[in-house]
């Protein structure tokens, strides 16, 4: 007899084929299939089960291995699920495990906690397709297109007792014969025919004792309100379309039902985040986008208490997933903003350029131009008298404009007001070099541009009888004198010595150099170095030569030089992110713990706050990566061939 029971939530339910009875008093009825909310679920189908905690987006995946109901209708219907592990759930045990695919799952095997659980039937949140791609002989190999269209794949198992990934699949897992775990060889139609032939109500085919499933005893409690993420929604729709409806049960409602059900689900955080991220992308407000999800997560994480470690690491992984969604959309407006900003920076020198142009047109002489630019009172107007070559006069104004432009960009790099006056000073000093400089420039330009190797500079510059000062001191000294130059666009693998050699060979100047180490905040594909010269004139000369000419290194990059703005020494008084409570507010043990270092456990507020910081860090990593990728591509477009083309 088949019952048609309307479940409490109004979701339609109907039993399918019976399998047998069991139990001490023969009052437990086992089934092979059922229809729930329009979907047909059979034994050994893979289903999604929502997570109980309020802030997880990913459902758990399990395979139905038993379905039953008590004669006593007050005892709710149950299913036993054999779990699949996601890589994020067993991350600590995945060290050294090769080739974990993005949608790969691990079947639980062995014995112990976490293998399988009994759950209420109503906890099932939808179907999904899990394909076995193990190369085991017993497993019918699926076609490539099936693999691509499956929601998940699995080929290895995870032994819950020994907590290890196992490559082979045993003959029986959780009392289930392995042939049910592998892909079904026969098509749906054959399967239903076989079921039709099977014994009916009083059949003794079921040898499994009902006592087993009733003992649950593990932490995965599921409430009636199941959660679904947007992935689940897609998968349930896909599954319904893929599975053949050759079953003899009455025609079920199709994808629309599943959609309705997922739409009515209010707690799906995945949708929530996506929607939020999208709408704020439209608004293009960087800060709003970031602070809102951060606050949401923060308030929700306070509600979650007593979560297991596995759970929290999965949360961290979910943080990563969510973060990826967020930052993908966030970094795009970030980049747009940066480009907006940087184009804003470009606008400034353009304006300055116009100023230059407007001045030179009536005069045609650079001297008055310089007078207009240098705003501080330290100009050497006397030295402006030297006239310039006719030839260079034409060349120099356009060069000068770009020079000014580059200077300004150099200014924005250094972010200081003082350097502005420095560069202007530099500009005012420039014509004082007069003819000698021009001649050298002309020499540069006319030198035969053969490829020259960088040779080790002679040690004449280094005095052997003084102990050389440590870099820090000499740098601070040099900064006062204004002889520190920042060389950019180097190959990041250069060493300080190589930089010194380059400067010597190419520019014939002695110097001391130090490569700036790569950290998480530096651009990974370019290198920078701080170079100290002996005198200020040398420094200026070098900068000028590198600006007006182009020194191309064998890495295909021209060198860029500017005056360096160095952060003044001294440490900030406090570090943002470290909370200082009053002495009265903390107990002694806590103070000790704070003063030393410790790993935070997931059962306190500190952990939640740390998670926020992790999110913050991860977001920035993502943004930096995308920015640097874009920059690398831009550079690649302008790649210059090192070997000169023969004329």
């Amino acid at each position, binding site marked *: 007899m088949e019952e048609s029971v309307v479940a409490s939530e109004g979701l339609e339910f109907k039993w399918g084929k019976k399998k047998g009875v069991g139990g001490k008093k023969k009052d437990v009825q086992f089934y092979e299939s059922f229809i729930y909310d329009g979907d047909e679920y059979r034994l050994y189908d893979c289903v999604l089960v929502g997570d109980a905690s309020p802030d997880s987006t990913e459902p758990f995946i399990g395979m139905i291995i038993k379905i039953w109901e008590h004669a006593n209708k007050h005892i709710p219907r149950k299913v036993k699920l054999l779990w699949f592990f996601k890589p994020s759930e067993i991350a600590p045990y995945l060290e050294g495990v090769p080739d974990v695919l993005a949608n790969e799952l691990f079947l639980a095997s062995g014995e112990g906690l976490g293998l399988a659980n009994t759950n209420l039937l109503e906890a099932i949140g939808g179907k999904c397709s899990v394909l076995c791609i193990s190369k085991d002989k017993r497993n019918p190999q699926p076609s490539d297109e099936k693999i691509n269209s499956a929601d998940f794949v699995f080929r290895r198992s995870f032994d819950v007792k020994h907590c290890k990934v196992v490559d082979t699949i045993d003959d029986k897992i959780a009392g289930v014969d392995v042939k049910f775990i592998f892909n079904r060889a026969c098509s749906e139609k054959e399967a239903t025919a076989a079921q039709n032939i099977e014994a009916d109500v009083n059949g003794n085919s079921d040898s499994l004792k009902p006592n087993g499933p009733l003992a649950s005893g593990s932490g995965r409690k599921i409430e009636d309100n199941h959660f679904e993420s947007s992935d689940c929604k897609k998968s349930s729709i896909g599954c319904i379309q893929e599975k053949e409806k050759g079953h003899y049960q009455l025609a079920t409602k199709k994808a629309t039902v599943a959609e309705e059900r997922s739409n009515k689900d209010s707690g799906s955080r995945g949708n929530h985040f996506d929607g939020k991220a999208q709408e704020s992308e439209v608004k293009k407000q*960087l800060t709003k986008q970031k602070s809102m999800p951060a606050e949401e997560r*923060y308030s929700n994480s306070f509600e979650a208490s007593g979560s297991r470690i596995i759970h929290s690491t999965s949360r961290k992984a979910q943080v990563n997933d969510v973060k990826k969604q967020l930052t993908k959309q966030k970094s795009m407006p970030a980049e747009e903003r*940066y*480009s907006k900003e*940087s184009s804003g920076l470009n606008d400034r020198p353009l304006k300055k350029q116009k100023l230059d142009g407007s001045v030179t047109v009536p005069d045609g002489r650079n001297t008055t131009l310089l007078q207009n630019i240098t705003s501080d009172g330290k100009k050497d107007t006397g030295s402006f008298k030297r006239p310039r070559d006719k030839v260079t006069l034409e060349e120099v104004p356009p060069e000068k404009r770009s020079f000014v432009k*580059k200077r300004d*960009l150099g200014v924005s*790099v250094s972010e200081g007001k003082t350097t502005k006056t420095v560069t202007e000073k530099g500009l005012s000093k420039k014509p004082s070099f007069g003819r000698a400089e021009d001649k050298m420039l002309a020499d*540069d*330009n*006319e*030198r035969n*541009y053969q490829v*020259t*190797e*960088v040779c080790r500079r002679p040690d004449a510059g280094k005095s052997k009888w003084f102990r050389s000062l440590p870099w820090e001191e000499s740098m601070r000294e040099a900064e006062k004198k204004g002889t520190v130059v920042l060389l*950019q666009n180097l190959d*990041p*693998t250069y*060493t300080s*010595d*190589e930089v010194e050699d380059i400067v010597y*060979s*190419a520019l014939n100047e002695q110097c001391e150099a*130090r*490569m700036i180490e790569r*950290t998480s*905040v530096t651009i990974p594909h370019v290198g920078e170095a*701080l170079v100290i010269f002996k005198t200020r004139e040398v420094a200026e000369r070098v900068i000028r030569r590198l600006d007006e000419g*182009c*020194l*191309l*290194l064998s890495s295909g990059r*021209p060198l*860029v030089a500017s005056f*360096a703005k*160095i*952060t003044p020494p001294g440490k*900030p008084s406090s*570090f*943002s*992110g*470290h909370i200082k*409570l009053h002495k009265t*507010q903390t107990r002694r043990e806590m103070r000790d713990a704070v*003063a030393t*270092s410790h*790993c935070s456990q997931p059962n306190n*507020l*500190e952990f939640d*706050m740390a998670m926020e*910081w992790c999110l*913050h860090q991860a977001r*920035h990593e993502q943004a930096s990566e995308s*920015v640097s990728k874009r920059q690398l591509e*831009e*550079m690649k477009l*302008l790649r210059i061939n*090192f070997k*000169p083309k023969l004329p």
Partner: protein
Amino acid sequence: MATPEEVAYEKFLERVRRTVYIDELTPLATAPVISSAFNQFGTVKKVSFIPNYLGPKELPMGVLVEMENEEMTQAVISTVSQLPFMVAGMPRPVRACAAEPNMFVDKPKKPGRTVRFRWIKPNDPDFDKARRVKRLARKHSAENSFMLKKQLEEAEKLSKQQAETAVTHHKKFEMMDKLLYDGVAQKLAGRYDLKGFPYR
């Protein structure tokens, strides 16, 4: 047969493999603090700070911690990636990743590589391209310093927000403690006839 240069480079690479790069550290941390912190994972051989010459002042510090052998390095990295590890202050955790040769200022030259250069003539078609590259390089570094500034601002905001909530929580717990201690809670429990109230 390896030249002495290559030998030196190999030794350097081996040292790199044993080193962890720790980021997001407070600039107030000192070398002994860091070495005692990471001594929990294994023997720390050397701690070297990465100086911050060009970045803004509030930038979190980076440190290279050299351990005894590679396994300890792996242990550090895997633990710090899974659980938030806090050094000398909470709750901002540090970040760890494997060190790279470019992070060392005293790295030896890569053997077998020579740097070559040439000046480009102004009338060479590549000259203009080189100019643009130079401009692009400056633009990029401007972009990066801007991004850094934004990141620091966000960090400031987050930390202010957390400080506020921490204080609020503290007040809440204090209040609860006080009530239980004073006996007010018990009296109320008696009043409302709550059975089995704790702390009786």
